[in-house]
């Protein structure tokens, strides 16, 4: 028993990984769904957007959507972005996209997700028998593109108060944003008074910077963040104080929002079930580890001698033998090539390709249909002919043959792409077995590609924007005044002194300027953030004293009482300059430590949400999209 417990407390990490993959995969084979319970702050977020949509004055204003997320956090940000965009599109609210991260992958990823959100709304309208909605670029929404504001705080005021002057040209057509005539939507966005809300869907806490630097001056400004769980933990106090109007925490926040947005689909999907299963497994493993630890601890404390020998804890796990690694790799290559050949052979035989099966009006609601179906040109053509409307193409201009050909080639492209994704995903997962060549190969692809991709930003911001301004200064006499932008060459050149042994300190100068620029707004930001926090904490504690709206809610007051207790104990714990000698003083410190542990526990829970939200979609892709299509749906 003790030996078994000791073994259970020291399972090989690869066994744990394997079990995790199995558990995450199970919900894609065993279909079920559970009801979703939206969190309070998710409801606040949804209700605020609804209020804006229902208010005739507010709905005419523009919403600024700051989307600073990319592939790394797309497990959480992508579903958040999807539901928020679908809500804005459905309620026909006007919005503007802004990105402040220099890597173009971030911008482009969000725009691909936006197109998918539009397609989903069109599909939903078709399914519900409603007219096909269309949205016009420049009238309903605009894409301002991206700038390089990796350190967000120095840019926060400009981004919210005067984004048109900062971004200067729209991303799609490159038209002048400072000119109202460029797009009809621009005449609605002249100052902050024309902004109904700022939504930040990001991997960082930009919403906090905006709350500290802008909201303190413009209290009417509504700020709503959607962030990964690890960032959301920091933002909860700001929602309580009213500095933020709601919060979408992690992928679960997106699921909860979806349950409010699509009340006819209020339960979970296989991906969400996989996430649940992963979290449950994590807790089960912690439980197993602790039970095993408690059983084996007495024996481990007593020496290892005696009738029951407890295996010593393994310090470092041995790497897999070389033959096994090569064997596994060979198996992978064989299986992967076989799968690709099988798929290609099937395509050559019947000229049909797998695709997501769309819902049909005559579907039986009590029957579960295969996720994918195989279609050929004939089915695609019939479908296109049956469609009353196709977004962006007037019926008179429709060329069914060309549209069929496009749809078919897009299916081929997607299927080829899925094989690439599967290869890359398995290549990165190979690292779980230890460092190996397959992983390093995929790592080299990531690094080379990412760097080349980032050069788009260089071309856009330095060559087109800066170079274009200087070129205009030289060629156009009216733009001569713009020639002073040439001076930026000096601070820009300072970066490159990092390669000079003698003048490396000059590089420190430019780093110091940006350090100062990051530091400068901190004073205003911290003061702007903390004062409302303190004011929110100083509220009546008596349960029957009315809330700011005049409502008497003893439960809300009780929550506030607990909140203030936790806050006080946390603050006392951080007062380092005295050491209490009385029993009461020590007790207070112990209580402070305990409430902080409760808080840290909750933070850990949010971190688990984040990490597993990043993993589950990759497993979902392998099982549902790649293998699912291979197996015929």
């Amino acid at each position, binding site marked *: 028993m003790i030996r078994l417990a000791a073994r259970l407390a020291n399972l090989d990490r690869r066994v744990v990984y394997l079990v995790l993959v199995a558990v995450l995969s199970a919900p894609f084979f065993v279909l079920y769904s559970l009801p979703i319970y939206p969190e309070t702050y998710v409801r606040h977020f949804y209700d605020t957007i609804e209020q804006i949509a229902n208010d005739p004055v507010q709905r005419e204003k523009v919403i600024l959507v700051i989307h600073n997320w990319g592939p790394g956090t797309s497990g959480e940000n992508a579903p958040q972005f999807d539901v928020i965009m679908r809500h804005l599109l459905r309620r026909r609210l006007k919005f503007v996209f802004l990105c402040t991260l220099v890597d173009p992958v971030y911008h482009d990823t969000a725009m691909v997700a936006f197109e998918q959100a539009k397609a989903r709304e069109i599909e939903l309208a078709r399914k519900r028998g409603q007219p096909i909605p269309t949205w016009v670029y420049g009238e309903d929404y605009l894409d301002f593109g991206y700038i390089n504001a990796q350190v967000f705080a*120095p840019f926060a005021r400009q981004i919210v108060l*005067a984004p048109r002057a900062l971004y200067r040209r729209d991303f799609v057509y490159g038209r002048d944003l400072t000119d109202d005539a460029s797009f009809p939507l621009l005449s609605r966005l002249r100052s902050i008074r024309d902004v109904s809300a700022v939504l930040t869907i990001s991997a960082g806490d930009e919403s906090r910077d905006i709350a500290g630097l802008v909201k303190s*001056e413009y209290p009417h400004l509504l700020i709503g963040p959607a962030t990964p769980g690890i960032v959301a933990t920091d933002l909860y106090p700001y929602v309580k104080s009213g500095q933020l109007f709601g919060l979408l925490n992690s992928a679960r926040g997106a699921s909860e929002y979806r349950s409010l947005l699509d009340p006819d689909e209020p339960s979970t999907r296989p991906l969400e079930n996989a996430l649940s299963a992963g979290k449950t497994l994590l807790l089960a493993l912690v439980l197993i580890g602790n039970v095993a630890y408690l059983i084996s601890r007495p024996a481990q404390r007593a020496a290892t001698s005696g009738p029951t020998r407890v295996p010593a804890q393994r310090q470092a796990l041995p790497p897999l033998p070389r033959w096994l690694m090569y064997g596994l790799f060979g198996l992978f290559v064989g299986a992967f090539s076989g799968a690709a050949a099988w798929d290609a052979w099937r395509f050559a035989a019947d000229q049909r390709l797998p695709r997501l099966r769309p819902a049909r009006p005559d579907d039986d609601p009590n029957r579960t249909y295969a996720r994918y179906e195989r279609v050929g040109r004939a089915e695609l053509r019939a479908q296109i002919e049956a469609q009353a409307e196709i977004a962006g193409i007037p019926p008179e201009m429709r060329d069914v043959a060309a549209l069929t050909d496009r749809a078919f080639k*897009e299916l081929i492209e997607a299927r080829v*792409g899925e094989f690439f994704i599967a290869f890359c995903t398995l290549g990165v997962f190979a690292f779980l077995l230890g460092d190996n060549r397959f992983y390093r190969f995929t790592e080299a*692809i990531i690094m*080379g590609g990412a760097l080349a991709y980032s050069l788009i930003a260089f071309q856009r911001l330095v060559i087109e924007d800066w170079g274009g301004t200087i070129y205009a200064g030289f060629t156009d006499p009216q733009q001569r005044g713009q020639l002073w932008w040439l001076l930026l060459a000096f601070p820009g050149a300072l970066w490159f002194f990092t390669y000079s042994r003698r003048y490396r*300190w000059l590089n420190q100068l430019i780093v110091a300027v940006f350090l100062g620029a*990051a530091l400068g707004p901190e004073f205003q930001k911290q003061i702007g953030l903390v004062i409302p926090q303190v004011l929110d904490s100083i509220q009546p504690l008596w349960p029957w004293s009315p809330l700011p709206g005049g409502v008497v809610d003893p439960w809300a007051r009780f929550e506030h009482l607990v909140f203030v207790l936790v806050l006080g104990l946390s603050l006392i714990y951080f007062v380092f300059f005295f050491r209490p000698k009385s029993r009461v003083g020590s007790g207070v410190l112990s209580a402070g430590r305990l409430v902080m542990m409760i808080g840290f526990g909750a*933070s850990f829970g949010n971190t688990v949400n984040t990490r597993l939200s990043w993993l589950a979609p990759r497993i979902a892709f392998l099982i549902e999209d790649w293998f699912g299509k291979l197996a015929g749906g």
Partner: protein
Amino acid sequence: MRARMIWLAVVLGASYFIISFAVGEDTAVGQSLGLASIRNVLNRAMSIVLTMALAIGVINLFQAHGATILRRRRGWGFSLVLFVTFFSVLGFMVWEYRLERAERRLAERTQAARAAYEAALCSADPHERQQALAALTPADRALLHEYYTYHQTYHFRPRTFYLQYFINPLAQTVMALLGFYITYAAYRAFRLRSLEATVMMLSAAVMILGSDPVGGWLSAAFNRLLGADPTADWWVNLPAWADFDNRVMMSGMQRGLAIGIAVATIAAGLRILLGLEKGIIQVRPSGEQT
């Protein structure tokens, strides 16, 4: 002297923001100083200068991996893969850039014809509509045909393909590895060795289960077992407990931390601006990378 210049550079970088905070952009003094216009120019300049630093990444890549290939160091093959990918993606970008430029030109060229055509289509009166459509010139019709034919034809977009089928899934999968690590780390490290660890674990368990649909399902099952009325408030309500844990317990602790961090940030910021933080303003030895 050099240290003082570095310190002055820090102060220079911070000066606009401090003046703007002290004076206020919308006050009479702020408006007479043109603080809003300065902010506008400053932010654009910062964005451009920061982007110039991207070139350092390319130079470093060429230096490090180029040397690995030239000297046939261990793993040089992977450096070669890196370069092949770099130049392939660069090629993809040029390809798609040309495609997008052609599309933009087509859109601009056909804009007037499309506007007239779409206005005609919007007309509710069929007679008026027919008249408006008949008024389109053959040149307009040719432009419209060209535009819509282009948009109904398949075009391979290499940059989008690379984004959707390479870099996105790769980056996602790298981050997904953390899901494995946190599971194993929780299993190995989360031992109930003290009261504090136990409290933390319980709070984490409530949060993990309660913030998930499985928590609602478990709560319903418990309540059924305990004979609670399903229409009334539940006795065991993990979603509500998790909500409370987030909004009250964790939020209270986070606010305490935020207040402490704010005070510390202001103090540290003042020390840097006053030149008291020697670690930041000292000149690094020539061999040390910044």
